[in-house]
């Protein structure tokens, strides 16, 4: 047994291409229309070599269509797709250096686990000895040694998912596309497989393009995420970036339930700092999306976890609110509250925090550096809330 982790060198095979310069995937003005519907509407993205990249958004936002266009399963209406610097827009699916893990696994029911994994190798006329060796490696990587003679129907959902992954990885693709691969699994298994996926991605070093509607999952695993809405990318950045500095109200709402305080920009300080006036809170100074104008109707984002039940002090802003309901989330309690103006507000507190009671009114405050100001977009917020 080797002491090092069994890293699989994905570019070691005979005849595998030398790593091409430039991004692993480049999408240029990529679009797909179905009649009047713009499923994907002019997307520009560069995905780096070895990156774990996720596309998230509500259903119908165009994330799966984008993935299927990269795979070659949907033809773009306009635009270009490059993989490792090579234009593959007109290539048929079976000629592209990418592989897909499908949402429902799409394992071949008439073939054994071994033959499922060997499927693509056989298409490439790989020698019998190499097929045995590479399939064996994959069975080890996804922890399914001993299952190779079974049929897909004899495996659990999580195991089938791993077969689907192995079947794609065995081909050493330049890019692996994953279409909600954990969507059909229960929560506990999802968490386990998220860890496994992350580990495998690190071990093989292949670029992963991941599609999910679950922002938590995407944030947990990805280097960068693209939040999509109506066929466009609403924001692209690291999970931290997107969470802390959402570009729009839609993103702010989609990446986690947030409190949005209606406000007006009163004064600008530099490019991205503003003096705003919010209902019930008064004037305060906070950072926000660059380029907001004085007098513009805006929205101050305050995450439930930064609010605490303490009076306003230096560097903080706040208001008072009455608790209307409590929800226990294990180690945390979610408090649903109402401001004197009748607006809902939510706050999360730790279990061991001094007890909060329904019906009581509290002085609440939050640090100004945790506030983020952005342009008001009622429709966007509603679209994200529906998810």
């Amino acid at each position, binding site marked *: 047994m080797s002491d090092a982790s069994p890293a699989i060198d994905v570019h070691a095979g005979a005849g595998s291409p030398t790593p091409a310069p430039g991004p692993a995937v480049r999408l240029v003005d990529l679009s797909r229309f179905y009649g009047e519907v713009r499923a994907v509407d002019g997307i520009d993205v560069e995905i780096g070599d070895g990156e774990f990249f996720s596309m998230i958004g509500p259903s119908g936002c165009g994330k799966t269509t984008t993935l299927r266009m990269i*795979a*070659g*399963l949907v033809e773009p209406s306009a635009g270009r797709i490059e993989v490792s610097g090579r234009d593959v827009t007109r290539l*048929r*699916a*079976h000629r592209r250096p990418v*592989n*897909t893990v*499908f949402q*429902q696994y*799409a*394992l*071949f*029911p*008439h073939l054994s686990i071994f033959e499922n994994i060997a*499927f*693509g190798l056989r*298409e*490439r006329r790989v020698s019998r000895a190499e097929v045995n060796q590479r399939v064996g490696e994959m069975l080890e990587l996804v922890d399914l040694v001993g299952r190779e003679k079974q*049929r897909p*129907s004899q495996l659990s959902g999580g195991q089938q998912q791993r077969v689907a992954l192995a*079947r*794609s990885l065995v*081909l050493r693709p330049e890019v692996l596309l994953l279409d909600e691969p954990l969507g059909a699994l229960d929560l506990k298994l999802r968490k386990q497989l998220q860890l496994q996926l992350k580990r495998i991605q690190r071990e093989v070093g292949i670029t992963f393009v991941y599609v999910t509607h679950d922002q938590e999952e995407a944030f947990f695993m990805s280097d960068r995420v693209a939040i999509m809405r109506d066929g466009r990318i609403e924001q692209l950045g690291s999970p931290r970036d997107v969470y802390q500095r959402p570009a729009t109200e839609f993103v702010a709402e989609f990446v986690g339930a947030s409190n949005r305080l209606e406000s007006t920009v009163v004064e600008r300080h530099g490019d991205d700092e503003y003096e705003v006036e919010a209902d019930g809170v008064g004037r305060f100074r906070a950072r926000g999306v660059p380029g907001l104008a004085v007098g513009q109707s805006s929205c101050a984002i305050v995450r439930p976890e930064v609010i605490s039940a303490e009076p306003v002090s230096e560097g903080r802003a706040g208001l008072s609110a009455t608790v209307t309901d409590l929800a226990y989330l294990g180690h945390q309690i979610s408090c649903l509250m109402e401001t004197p103006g009748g607006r809902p507000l939510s706050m999360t507190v730790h279990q061991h925090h001094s007890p909060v009671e329904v019906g009581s009114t509290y002085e609440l405050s939050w640090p100004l550096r945790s506030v983020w100001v952005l342009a008001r977009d009622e429709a966007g917020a509603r679209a994200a809330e529906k998810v």
Partner: protein
Amino acid sequence: MRRRLPRPTSVFTGAVMICLYLPIIAVVVYSVDKSADLIGFTGFTTHWYSVAFHDPQVRQDLVTSLEVAAGSTVISLAIAICAGLWTRGASPRARRIFDGLTYSRIVLPEIVFALGLLILFSKLHVAYGVWAIIFGQVVFNSAYATIIIQARLASLSGTLEEAAADLGANRWRVFRRVTFPLLVPAVLVAALLMISFSFDDVIVAQFLGGSSAEPISVLLLGMIRLHVTPEVNAIGTGLMLITLLTFSTAGLITVLRPTGAGQFLALGRRAAK
């Protein structure tokens, strides 16, 4: 406690069933009756089967029937698979028109298109015979096969084929390695059904056989016209057995389909161990 009388519906159904199956029972009974005059049962014999089996005309016509069945089944299957694959990608409008055409081949009286083919073949100077019968039977057999294949294809998600293409298989390889293996149960069911229909067919065979080809069904019809002999009953019983056998095989395949016949057998072997 008084037993309730049987419900009227059960009585009626029972009576109908008896009426429907009596003729079949009569055929079987008289095929093993010693007496040749079909009056009463006078004793058991397999003599008439031996007579039928050694009749050169019966043998020759049985071969013709088998040729016709094989030909029409194979051609119909090829048509059905192509049609099934095409309709999957067709527009809803084209699909509606195509389905209408398919069903019409089943619904329209066989005698009408048999007559039509008779006229067409004569105008085109196509020789009557085995091939003419085959083409005539393909008209309806391919329609049944198309419906069966379409049903199976509808239950398959296209994702499996997408996955195969994604893994590097071109269109032909996708068909050979994924689509066709998944269609096999439907293909078998369709084939067995078509063989039965083919054996059973009198009209097309009569119209298009000409003087060179006479399937067993036509022979039987001719024999009955003269005199119903125990030999006719023996042939009839033989045909019935062939049909029953193919249908029960088809039924078995349909029953086993969810798990796959192969897997079922494998489980059986494991249990035996």
